[in-house]
């Protein structure tokens, strides 16, 4: 996984999560220990990018010039098939329960995950 640590948050086209080798818990917000059991024994893994839409909100009023250029943009919460929830962008017509797959796009000068309905 070298070079991918942090995934898209560090500019790599990947969704990365941690799996605890002690209790089996999975966490999306990376840290040096398992938030469920405290174990430092974690393995970093790459998610498939498949998931289900949990919630959506189309942003029509942004607060910075960089983000305003993208309005409207859809913020989505996706439950990944690996079992963790993540925030991302997505197609504006996504509905709760839709099966989705990820790609990556540029937003306000950064790489961000973007979900569209799975083919």
């Amino acid at each position, binding site marked *: 996984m070298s070079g991918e640590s942090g995934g898209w948050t560090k500019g790599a086209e990947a969704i990365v999560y941690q799996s605890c080798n002690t209790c089996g818990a999975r966490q999306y917000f990376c840290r040096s220990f398992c938030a469920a059991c405290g174990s430092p024994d974690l393995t970093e893994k790459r998610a498939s990018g498949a998931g289900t839409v949990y919630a959506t909100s189309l942003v029509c009023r942004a607060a910075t010039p960089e983000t305003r250029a993208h309005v409207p943009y859809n913020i989505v919460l996706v439950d990944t098939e690996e079992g963790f*929830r993540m925030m991302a962008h997505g197609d504006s017509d996504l509905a709760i329960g839709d099966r989705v797959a990820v790609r990556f796009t540029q937003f306000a000068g950064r790489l961000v995950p973007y979900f569209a309905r799975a083919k």
Partner: protein
Amino acid sequence: MSFVTGVGLTSYGKHDGLSSLDLMSNAAELAIADAGLKRSEINGILCGYSTVSPHIMLATVFAEHFGIRPAYAHAVQVGGATGLAMTMLAHHLVDAGVVRHVLVVGGENRLTGQSRDASIQALAQVGHPDYEVPLGPTIPAYYGLVATRYMHEYGVTQEDLAEFAVLMRKHALTHPGAQFHEPITVADVMASKPVAVPLKLLDCCPVSDGGAAFVISREATSDRRVRVRGCAQAHTHQHVTAAPALSELGAEIAIARAKQASGIAISDIRYAAVYDSFTITLAMLLEDLGLAKRGEAAARVRAGHFSRNGAMPLNTHGGLLSYGHCGVGGAMAHLVETHLQMTGRAGNRQVRDASVALLHGDGGVLSSHVSMFLERVR
């Protein structure tokens, strides 16, 4: 035992030229006078924060400015729940005998002290700095996510949510200190500009200048005896990405703990003061707290249940949605109004019976919760 012995509240809206410290001072002056105390009798100070004038020691900055040398002072930060969290701490401080009179104060020139963009941007930072904020969400978007999910699970509609904005505006019309004085309809809410779908402009609280303060004391200082009967908190997450399922949010946990601590049941409550940053916040919290069944809060609004003359008068000053939201002071206005109602001083807004009140605050994205019961002691 602790009593809310004094309350103070400025009007909300624009206060051109006033700083956060000015607004805090104005509210504090009113609260201390209301308690019938002198400044020198205040020996504890709890204050919130100001996004316009951030400081690592706001309580002592305020104490020096106001002219008090307290035996206990610090700031508290739990977003929108800060006012009730400070009240809970003040209750325990006086109950434990640490101090006798605690001044709880919040105030901010959030409207005129910075641009709306700056306010929106500052508040969006409650999101995760690596995993959320780079995606450009705003506070309305965080709550918009919660709203779409809640509507999906419980069959709530945008028209249902609009009812809460209309009710809060109706209440604000009767309060001269409220930010908004024009009546609105469900159609107006539906036609207002989308901010973060499904939330539209009139589903969102405004940005305001204002200040609010209370004095929490070990003994009553007059025959207006309003007692903190019991309170509790719950903190389940910070970021909406890490929030538990809708059925496991902190409001239900906090109210259960507060009921346990006070021995009060929902059927005992005569007045409700519930955090209403957005219409969805109010709808969800009313249902989480047990003041309406799941998906039925809007129907109760339509039936007049939460109106001034209804069975459970709610936020009779107009709430955050229409009295205004100046940050920490925003939800403190709910407690000021509750106190006025409990002591028969609400004038043309007076309800029949506010002998037992439930107050609930929410900070972050339904992250931090404080539930509190106040009781009028005869």
